[in-house]
C-alpha cells in the first residue's frame, strides 16, 4: 500500500476500495462473512468457519469468498454469518453451528434457497 499524502490520495483510495466492492458484488461471486469477535469465537465461530471451508474444499465449490468481520452486537445469536449472493440483499444467519453452516452451504449457497429457520429478523 502506498502512503496517502493528501486528501486527494485518500479520496482515490476510497474510490478504489468502493470499486473493489462493486466488482465483487457484480461478479456474481458469493460472499460468506463470518463474525469472528470474542463472542462469536466463544460461541463456536471457529468450528463454523471450519465447516464452511471444509464444505467448499470437499465439494470443490468455486466462486465463493469467505471473509471475517468482528461482532455485530447480537451476541445472543452468535455464531453469526452473513451470506451475500451477487447483488441480492445480505442474509444474516444466527446460531450457526457447524451443522447449520453445512445446511446453509448446501441449501442457500449451492441451492440458492434461503434457510429461513436461522435468519435473524430485524
Amino acid at each position, binding site marked *: *500500500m*502506498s*502512503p*496517502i*499524502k*493528501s*486528501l486527494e*490520495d*485518500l479520496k482515490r*483510495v*476510497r474510490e*478504489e*476500495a*468502493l470499486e*473493489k*466492492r462493486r466488482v465483487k458484488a457484480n461478479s456474481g461471486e458469493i460472499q460468506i462473512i463470518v*463474525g*469472528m*469477535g*470474542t*463472542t462469536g*469465537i466463544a460461541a463456536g465461530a471457529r468450528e463454523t468457519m471450519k465447516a464452511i471451508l471444509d464444505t467448499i474444499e470437499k465439494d470443490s465449490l468455486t466462486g465463493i469468498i469467505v*471473509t*471475517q*468481520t*468482528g*461482532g*455485530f*452486537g*447480537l*451476541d*445472543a*445469536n452468535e455464531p*453469526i454469518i*452473513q451470506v451475500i449472493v451477487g447483488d441480492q440483499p445480505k442474509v444474516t444467519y444466527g446460531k450457526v453451528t457447524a451443522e447449520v453452516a453445512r445446511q446453509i452451504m448446501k441449501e442457500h449457497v449451492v441451492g440458492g434457497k434461503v434457510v429461513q429457520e436461522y435468519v*435473524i429478523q*430485524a
Partner: protein
Amino acid sequence: MKYYRSHVLVSVDPECVKRGAHEILDALQDELVAEGLIDEVQVLETSRIGDPAQGPDMMVYPEGTHYIGLTANDIPYIVKEHFLKGRVAAKFVAPEKAAVESELSAPTIKEIRVVLRNCGKIDPENIEEYIAEDGYMALAKVLTDCTPDQVIDMVMRSGLRGRGGAGFPTAKKWSLARDAVLPEKYIICNADEGDPGAFMNRLVLESDPHSVVEGMIIAAYAIGAVRGYIYCRAEYPIAVRTLNLAIRQARSMGLLGDNILGTNFSFDLEVRMGAGAFVCGEETALMSSIEGKRGEPRPRPPFPAVKGLWGRPTNINNVETYANVPQIILKGPEWFASMGTEKSKGTKTFALAGDVSHTGLIEVPFGISLREIVYDVGGGIKDGKGFKAIQTGGPMGGCLPAQFLDLPVDYETLGQAGSIMGSGGMIIMDDETCMVDIARFFMEFTQDESCGKCTPCRVGTRRILEILERICAGKGKHGDIETLEMLCKEIKTTSLCGLGQGAPNPVESTLKHFRHEYEAHIYEKRCPAKVCKSLIRYEISPEACTGCTVCARNCPVTAITGERRHAHIINPDTCIRCGICMQVCNFNAISIK
C-alpha cells in the same frame, strides 16, 4: 378537510432557517399563487429532514422527493418542473445518503448506530474497508481545513461527553490539555474495560479499530500531542491484535507517523497492555501502569490535563468517546446534538447481560427509557419471568427496581436515581434474583479489586463483604443494616479514587430499594428469592413422590432416604442444597421452602 394533491414540507430547523428557509416558504407561496396551484399544493413547515448543512431542504409528498441546497431563486424552476409539468427537478434531488441507510439498518428498532456503524459490516483487518466507509475523511478534513481550536469548538457544539462513565464534557477536557503550557503532551485511550458484563469497547476495538485510531489522531491534533497510547486489557487478545494490525496499516499508509497526509503534523500511537487490575481503569492508576509502575491511583488535582503521563499534560478518553469524534467532524456537531437529551447528546452503547432475551450490544440515543431498552431492544426477560431490577454502570453502579423503568436514560437521571451511567454495562435481573446475594457478589468483586492503597476502600469493603456474607449465611443480626449504611457512607466520602467511592453503590441502592429482603434475611432467616443456600430447604411432597428412587440415586451426599414406591425424605442436616434432586425429579415432587 381540504384535499391537496401534493404536500411540500419545508424544514425550519434552526440551521435551515439561518440558511433562508423562511425565504423559501415565501417564494413557494408566491410562486404557487402565481401558477394558480395554491389550492392543489399545500405548503407546510416541518422539523429537520436531512442534514441541515445541506439545507434549506424540503420534502414533496406523495412522491417523497427530497430537494436540498435550495435558494429562493430556485423555487420558480422547481414549482414549474415539479408541480406544473410533473417532472422531478433532478438537479436539486438529494443523493441517497449512505449514513441514513446505515442508521436505518440498525438490527433492532429504536437503535441508532453511530459508534457501532461499521461493526459486523467491515473486515476490521483491512484498512481499505474502513476507508471505503469514509474512514479517515474526518482526519483529512481536520488537517486540511481546521485549526485545533475549530476542532475543539466542533466537539464543544456537539455536546459530546466522556463515555467512560463520568460524563465530563470532552471539549472541555481537550481545551484544558491544549491550554497546558508544558510541551510534549500525550494522549491516552482508556480501553481497560473491566466491568463484569460490559464489552462495548471490546466490540468496537475488535470490529472497527480504525474509528478509535482516527478519533485519537484528531484529538492529538486538537491538543497538540506527539504520542498516544491505547491502554487495553490483556484479557482482550483479539482486540489487542486487531488494534496493533490497524496501527501498522495506518502507519504504512502515512496516516500515523511523521507528516500525516503531507501536513507538518506528526503523531504516533502504540498499544500498552494492562495485566488485569480493575483499578487500572481509573485514569491516574492507568497512567502509573503505562509508566511501568504499580497500578495505583493518586489524588487529583493535579489532573492529567495539567500533569499526567510522565508529568506531562495528558488527555485521557474512553474508546467510545474517540470513536464518536470522526462522525461528529464528518456529519457536523448539529447532527450529533440533534440526538439525545438536553444535557446528554448523541448515542450510547450498552452491553445487555443477565436475564434478558437478547444479550449483546446495543446503541441507543440518550433519553430512551430503561423499559424500551429491556423490552423493545432486549426482547424482555428470559423464560417469561418477571423483571426485578437492573444494575447500570457495572459493579460501582446501583440496582434500580421496576418503578424506575420509565426513567429516560442519561447521565443526570441515572445519577439522581442513585445509580450511574458508568461505561454502559447493564445487568438485568429477573424475579428469582436475591438482591442481598447480588450486593454480596458485587462487593466480592470490588473488595477483590481494591488496590489497597487507601484504608477506607481496603478495609471498608472487606467489612461490608463480611457482613453481607454473614447475612446470606443466615447469621445476620440486629444492627447489621445500620452498620452497612454507616460503612457505605464513610467509604464513599473518604476513599481516594472512583473505585472506593463507587464500591458501596450496589449495597446502598439495594438497601434503599430492597430493604425488605435484607430484613427477611436478618430477622426472619428467610431468603425471599430462595437463592441463599443457608436459608432454604429442599422438601419432597409425600403426595407427589412416587418413590422412583431417582433422587436418592443422584444425591451426591446421600441425604435422601426412602423405600422404592414409598415417599422419600431429605435429611436437611446432610443436604448441601445443590438442587440436583429437583432437576432429576420427573414428578415435580421437590420444592424449595
